């Protein structure tokens, strides 16, 4: 029965549903109101995602990939699909998050008083999903570029869907610009590969194993890392993330942050382990360094943010860094020819990819609910929401715990795996390699701690204590359609954490399917890893941990309650030292992170400026008001992007001088060109 879904037709059928739904919005909105339109567009997206889930899941289960190819009107471009284990795995993640996001989207626009037309939004949403589904399936470089750009373009329109705010437009501009820049690098690497192999078909690239000279390969790898790194948001190519994610509606940000970044990870894995395996291990070190930098800086920036969605965006950068750590260690291991360990690192990367997709989309959805319930994204205006929105609070709490890698949730499992792969690397003979690995371990450890701090802040400031504004006092719990996906995601966090050993075993199976050694398309049989998991269950026994801890907790609570059963509990006001406590006496997010920011001020470059207003300017005794504005110096803008732009501008201004306006000059141009050509011609 499962097998019947593991055919490419299911895949195409899903696209049919998706696009029909996407276009249907334009019709529905004519005859029905926006709410119905949302139902139609988002609902069909939901169904399509379910279909793709079914498809990829059955592929994984059944263990045989599918491939199909169609001719196109253009030479060299062929619409060829190939879904192997890796693609299926990523498809599964994408479609799962996609399903949740579209479910959430049904209620979102109304809830947030969204200022966008739901038919156009639904259209681009469908296109975006289609692009996301096609990227892992494409098997021809040009076709890949096409779908890659479709994905980016559609997401651009989603980002600017609330274009009445100039900020969003700027964010979209930056986003599309950066992504285009990345695409240029990608295209270059593809061109190089085509030059070396004479074809744009990925299969030909796979076939050309070892026939490409080292220099070309070096360029290919480098361009791929930075091209896809732009999409993945590694520092310093990350600047578009914190702009674009807040601008987009929350379920779109969930998709972008949760899965769109992962498509870049997907392609990097393909490049290093599938297309051109056997990269020298230095590339692994490069990835490790990039990963460490992104992880630490990302979480530091997240810590210093007060816009909840920007904070989540930065934390995505950090998680991408962690994923890169996994990939990097795998590359190093493969460079040393230790395939087993490479599997390990890759499994870590994939596992964290999956987990991050889950909890980051959950957090974005939660943030979206909070933002739409309170009408602001500034966490300084939240507070006490746990009482008015209990469900959202619980889900958000679970998300925060997972992202802070608290056992036995899934975040811990993948971070554990990443740590292990790094430990393996740290015991390598070469001093260089070892020091890089030790550095990465330190980075990862530091990151772990800082993430916990960051999300204590996020959750505590948002949901706990007293409301800091009327908006958050009067907030209401969000609608059913928005709660359900969050609930599902939150539940899956626990599921994928507790049964981590099973998951890891499964991932090793997936990794096996892209192992350079194997010839057949997909080496992944569902039953195989049931045995495999025995290996891991002794190492990472999270189910036992979970059970044990639950048991202890239950017994302790029971005992304590029994012991204190006669004691009463008095509900009184917080101790206020005789002052009356207002929301202004609570700790703010800024002051919560201020200590850490001060410690890392060398990196974060915080700025602080105080304006004091006196009652009497002449004699400055009585202060009327004192405003303190804190900010960060944006190093990348100041030292990287603005200079680049001004260089372009300089060139532009110089080029303008050609157009003098004097006709004699123009005639002279022609004349000189003629003379020059004549001289060249007779040379």
């Amino acid at each position, binding site marked *: 029965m499962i097998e019947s879904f593991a055919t490419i037709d299911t895949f195409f059928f899903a696209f049919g549903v998706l696009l029909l739904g996407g276009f249907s919005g334009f019709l529905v909105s004519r005859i029905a109101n926006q709410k119905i339109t949302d139902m139609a567009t988002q609902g069909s997206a939901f169904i399509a995602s379910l279909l793709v889930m079914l498809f990829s899941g059955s592929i994984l289960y059944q263990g045989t990939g599918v491939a199909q190819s169609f001719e196109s009107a253009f030479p060299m471009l062929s619409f060829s699909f190939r879904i192997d284990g890796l693609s299926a795995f990523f498809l599964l993640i994408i479609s799962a998050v996609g399903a949740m996001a579209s479910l959430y989207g049904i209620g979102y626009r109304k809830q947030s008083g969204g200022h966008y037309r739901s038919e156009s939004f639904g259209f681009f949403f469908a296109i975006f999903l289609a692009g996301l589904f096609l990227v892992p399936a494409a098997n021809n470089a040009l076709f890949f570029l096409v779908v890659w750009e479709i994905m980016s373009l559609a997401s651009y329109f989603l980002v600017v869907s609330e274009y009445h705010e100039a900020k969003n437009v700027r964010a979209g*501009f930056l986003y599309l610009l950066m992504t285009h820049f990345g695409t240029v690098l990608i295209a270059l690497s593809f061109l190089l590969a085509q030059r070396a192999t004479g074809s744009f078909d990925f299969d030909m690239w796979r076939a050309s194993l070892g026939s490409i000279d080292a220099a070309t390969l070096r360029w290919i790898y480098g361009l791929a890392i930075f091209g896809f790194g732009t999409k993945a948001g590694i520092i310093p190519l990350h600047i578009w993330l914190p702009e674009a994610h807040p601008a987009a509606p929350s379920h779109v940000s969930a998709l972008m942050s949760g899965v769109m970044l992962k498509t870049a990870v997907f392609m990097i894995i393909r490049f290093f382990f599938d297309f051109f395996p056997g990269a020298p291990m230095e590339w692994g070190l490069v990835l490790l360094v990039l990963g460490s930098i992104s992880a630490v800086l990302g979480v530091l920036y997240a810590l210093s943010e007060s816009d909840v969605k920007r904070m989540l965006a930065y934390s995505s950068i950090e998680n991408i860094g962690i994923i890169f750590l996994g990939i990097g260690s795998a590359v190093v291991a493969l460079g040393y020819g230790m395939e087993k360990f490479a599997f390990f690192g890759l499994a870590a990367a994939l596992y964290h990819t999956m987990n991050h997709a889950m909890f980051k989309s959950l957090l974005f959805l939660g943030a979206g609910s909070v933002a739409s319930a309170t009408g602001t994204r500034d966490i300084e205006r939240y507070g006490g929401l746990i009482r008015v929105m209990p469900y959202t609070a619980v889900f958000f709490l679970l998300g925060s715990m997972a992202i802070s890698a608290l056992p036995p949730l899934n975040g811990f499992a993948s971070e554990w795996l990443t740590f292990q792969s790094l430990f393996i690397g740290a015991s390598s003979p070469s001093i260089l390699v070892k020091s890089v690995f030790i550095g990465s371990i330190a980075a990862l450890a530091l990151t772990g701690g800082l993430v916990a701090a960051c999300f204590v802040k996020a959750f505590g400031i948002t949901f706990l204590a007293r409301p800091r504004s009327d908006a958050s006092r009067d907030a209401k719990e969000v609608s059913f359609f928005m709660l359900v996906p969050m609930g599902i995601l939150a539940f899956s966090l626990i599921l994928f954490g507790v049964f981590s050993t099973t998951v890891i075993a499964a991932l090793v199976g997936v990794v096996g399917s892209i192992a350079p050694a194997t010839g057949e398309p997909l080496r992944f049989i569902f039953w195989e890893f049931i045995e495999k998991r025995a290996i891991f269950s002794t190492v990472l026994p999270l189910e036992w941990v979970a059970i044990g801890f639950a048991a202890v907790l239950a017994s302790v609570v029971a005992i304590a309650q029994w012991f204190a059963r006669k004691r009463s509990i008095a509900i009184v006001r917080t101790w206020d030292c005789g002052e009356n406590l207002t929301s202004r006496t609570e700790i703010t997010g800024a002051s919560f992170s201020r200590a850490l920011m001060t410690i890392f001020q060398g990196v974060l470059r915080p700025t602080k400026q105080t304006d004091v207003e006196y009652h009497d300017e002449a004699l400055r005794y009585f202060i009327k008001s004192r405003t303190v504005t804190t900010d960060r110096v944006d190093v990348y803008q100041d030292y990287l992007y603005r200079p680049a732009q001004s260089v372009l*501008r300089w060139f532009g201004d110089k080029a303008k001088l050609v157009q003098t306006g004097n006709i004699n000059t123009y005639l002279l141009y022609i004349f000189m060109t003629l003379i020059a050509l004549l001289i060249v011609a007779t040379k």
Partner: protein
Amino acid sequence: MILAFLIIAPLLAAIIALVLRPRQRTIIEGSAFAAQLISFLGAVNILFAVAAGETAVFGSWLRVDALGAWFLLIVSFIGLMSVIHSIGYLREEVRKGIIGFKRVRQYYILFSIFLFAMLLAVSADYPILMWIAIEATTLSTVFLISFYNKPSATEAAWKYLMLNSLGLLLGLLGVMLFFSLSEGGVSGFDWESLRLAAGATLSPVAAKIAFACILVGYGTKVGFAPMHTWLPDGHSKAPSPISALMSGVLLNVAFLAILRFSGIVKAAGAGDFVIQAFLFFGVFSVALSAFIMFVQKNYKRLLAYSSIDNMGILALGFAFGGIGTFAALLHTLYHSLLKSLLFLSAGNIFMKYESTKIAKVRGLFRALPATSIIFFGGFIALSGLPPFGVFMSKMLILTAGFQSHPIIVSSVLILLAVVFFGFFRHVSEMFFGKVPEGVVPGESNALTVVPIVILAIVFIALSISFPAPLRMVLDQATVLINK
């Protein structure tokens, strides 16, 4: 026969307009439209004939091979679109009282002659005849550029006249040299005999010298940097339908001349010179336009520079040869469609905002929903973003060149990114934001929207798949050039 008819039709329209009184505007418009329709249908007919393997011939003067048919189709189709747009555009102008009926009649006369000249140039079998026709395009467009009779327009027209006259005279010199320099003379006066003579007796150096003149001469008309200087002025001052024609078609026609001669030079065994020259002009045009577009302040000039940029890309494509030629021919089609689309919608924008300053244009999406969406889409497509065809044509051109000139191709790719940056900056500013006061939202005139919609549809259709005859002609043309 059809060939002659479809070329004469616009001329007849011009004569009709000449004899009619200015008041009979509808008849004038109708005849102009009818003429364009006829020539378009004729072109389609010829396309089918050529696809079937025969060549349309009229006397010894006119002869349309695959290459000709390809360009003939482009010319006539864009001509048809822009005549439709002109009707709406001029009516709007008249309604606003900017121009009177006499000017309208004058417009249609010149317009028809212009198209007649271009059709003639594309299908001429004699190099000299082609030269005459192209010279005629200059003479007919001069007064269209100075149409608004403002000093700036006059200045633009004057520069256009002088530079192109000089260029074309150099082109004439080149033609003469081609005819004179092959030993034992040329048997006939047509391309083929010239090619044969060149293949037989023309010394490479002589061919190079002659081709240098051709390149500079017709290159001025094509708008290669640094001979491009007339182009931004002319395109930005002319009425939009004319800019659309000039940018979308006229440049291609001039390019056709260069292509034909380059074939002869190749026959004479100096192909490498052609390649070098194309590479130089290509890269230089792309670079210059990229940087100027980045700091451009006037959207019509922006589009004009984008034309220069695309001409550079074409040059590169033909330089790379092989699949690059195919892609370049494809790119001519896409570029013509898109650029005329962009210029026509720019015309609508101009009518709405009455300024060509980018800074003055804000909130386009609210002010002109249909036009703005098409404008934005046209920009996206033209800058080579998938899923549109230009992506494929550009990618194929680059691929063709990457084998032999990796450095050039990489730098061009970067430059194209710069173009995108500059272009996108301005477009996104124009598209979003608040509509300035005094601008009433809403499309002004259905006739100005229809053609751009049609263009958009045709472009999208052609970037998904093209009909068999078109593909056949394209392949034949590719063979012709690569031979």
